[in-house]
């Protein structure tokens, strides 16, 4: 039996690409469910009580868990970026522009994205595993029957904590990355720290810092949201906890790039990059 050729072609396409297509479909379904979850967050965040103590505790945990990692990666990024772009800049006789280039690329893009990715690995997976195991061992149910709204107590506090903490971590990451870069210039190019940082701050404008900070808020929100979403609706069984932690990282990372893309797009409109 021969099929009508276009149909045959269609079937061929479907067979070859259907795993990809179903992957894309799943991604959009997840996005849909996630927006539902986000809507619930916005509804509950305004309702009293605020659970302020728990919020502070979560902020402390977030910072505590990821600060060291953020500092190390930030430092290395600054170091490597400077080392690797030196030869090219020297070739063009533009090595004195190093602080401008590094400063802008770190503050605008590398700092927020890399800090967010590090936190996705550290925080989103942590939240996913923590809430997942609470779900599996019925602790979330226990909370519910004891009169505490688990969504407010567990989810809202965590999302707020990541949203507030990420911009702070990004600033710290930026600072240490610039320090790493300055260190290279100081050793290899004999540029004083003072001169280096003066030049960096000359090069930076509010148009670099403000969009990056706003973007970081969204990154933080995405990290908390996905981590909580995956953990809160974790499947039964201990395997479910692993899956929750794992998919939280993957999904957050994807979402971060989508947000970044949109953010650059919008910044372009306002600031004419």
């Amino acid at each position, binding site marked *: 039996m021969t099929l009508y050729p276009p149909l045959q072609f269609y079937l061929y396409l479907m067979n070859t690409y259907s795993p990809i297509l179903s992957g894309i479909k799943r991604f959009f379904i997840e996005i849909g469910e996630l927006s539902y979850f986000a809507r619930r967050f916005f509804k509950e965040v305004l309702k009293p009580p605020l659970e302020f103590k728990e919020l502070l505790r979560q902020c402390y945990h977030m910072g505590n868990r990821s600060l060291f990692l953020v500092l190390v990666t930030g430092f290395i990024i600054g170091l490597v970026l400077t080392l690797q772009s030196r030869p090219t800049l020297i070739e063009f006789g533009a090595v004195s522009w190093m602080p401008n280039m590094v400063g802008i690329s770190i503050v605008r893009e590398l700092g927020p994205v890399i800090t967010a990715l590090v936190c996705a690995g550290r925080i989103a997976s942590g939240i996913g595993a923590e809430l997942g*195991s609470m779900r599996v061992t*019925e*602790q979330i*149910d*226990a*909370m519910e*029957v*004891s009169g*505490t709204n688990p969504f407010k107590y567990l989810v809202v506090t965590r999302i707020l904590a990541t949203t507030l903490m990420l911009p702070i971590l990004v600033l710290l990451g930026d600072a240490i990355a610039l320090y790493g870069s300055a260190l290279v210039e100081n050793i290899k190019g004999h540029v004083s720290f003072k001169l280096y940082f003066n030049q960096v701050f000359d090069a930076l404008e509010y148009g670099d810092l403000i969009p990056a900070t706003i973007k970081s808020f969204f990154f933080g929100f995405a990290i908390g949201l996905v981590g909580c979403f995956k953990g809160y609706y974790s499947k039964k069984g201990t395997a479910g906890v692993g899956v929750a932690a794992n998919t939280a990282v993957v999904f957050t990372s994807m979402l971060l790039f989508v947000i970044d893309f949109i953010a650059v797009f919008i910044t372009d409109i306002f600031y004419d990059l």
Partner: protein
Amino acid sequence: MIHIKDLYKSFGNNHVLNGFNLRLYEGENLVVMGKSGSGKSVMIKCLVGLIQPDKGFISVMGKEIKTLDRETLDVLRSDIGFLFQGSALYDSMTVRENLEFPLRRHKRKMGGNTDPEPLVVEALQNVGLADAIDLMPEELSGGMKRRVALARTLILKPKIILYDEPTSGLDPITAKEIIELMRSIQKKYGTSSLIITHDVDCARVISERMVLLVDGINYVEGTFEELNRSTDPKVEAFFKK
């Protein structure tokens, strides 16, 4: 105290409850028995509104669960103690914080006290674990966890206690201790209890009336003796040694 009529619940194609009926009277110890996976946990979770049933009527202390808003439901829940199958202690908190947790939202249950400490100590003394107050849940054995969970349930002085397999996963001696505890609590506070179990010994000691949950319905009801004498193969299966 509790009235369940024609309760239906299915998960996809898995029809767990198919018209389950149950009544719990004041001051009574009612045991519900059923095979693993027969939907016992699903049934008591419907009772406290953790799971929405597909169909059916549930009323607890004269209030129909599905008509309640969050606030009234929370107030009602503070009168219902729920002992979870796996104890469900909050593992990031100490025993003390675990016990204080239910008091956060139910200040009126503290009887005008502002300091939860005496209540926590009293609840722990009731279960014989006053020394464990500053331990973390991971430092407790399974039996101790169950007792702390029981103390956490008791701290709000509930009028009804729902026990989901209070003795599962415990050795016979510890299981007996837990059963004794349940009886002494019942005597002390005059609570009504709904006990889910598949432990025949537990049922023998504690039950005043029993319900067998088979195929999603209340298959038979009666006292332990009556059911023990039954010649119905499905009933006998539970009591065979």
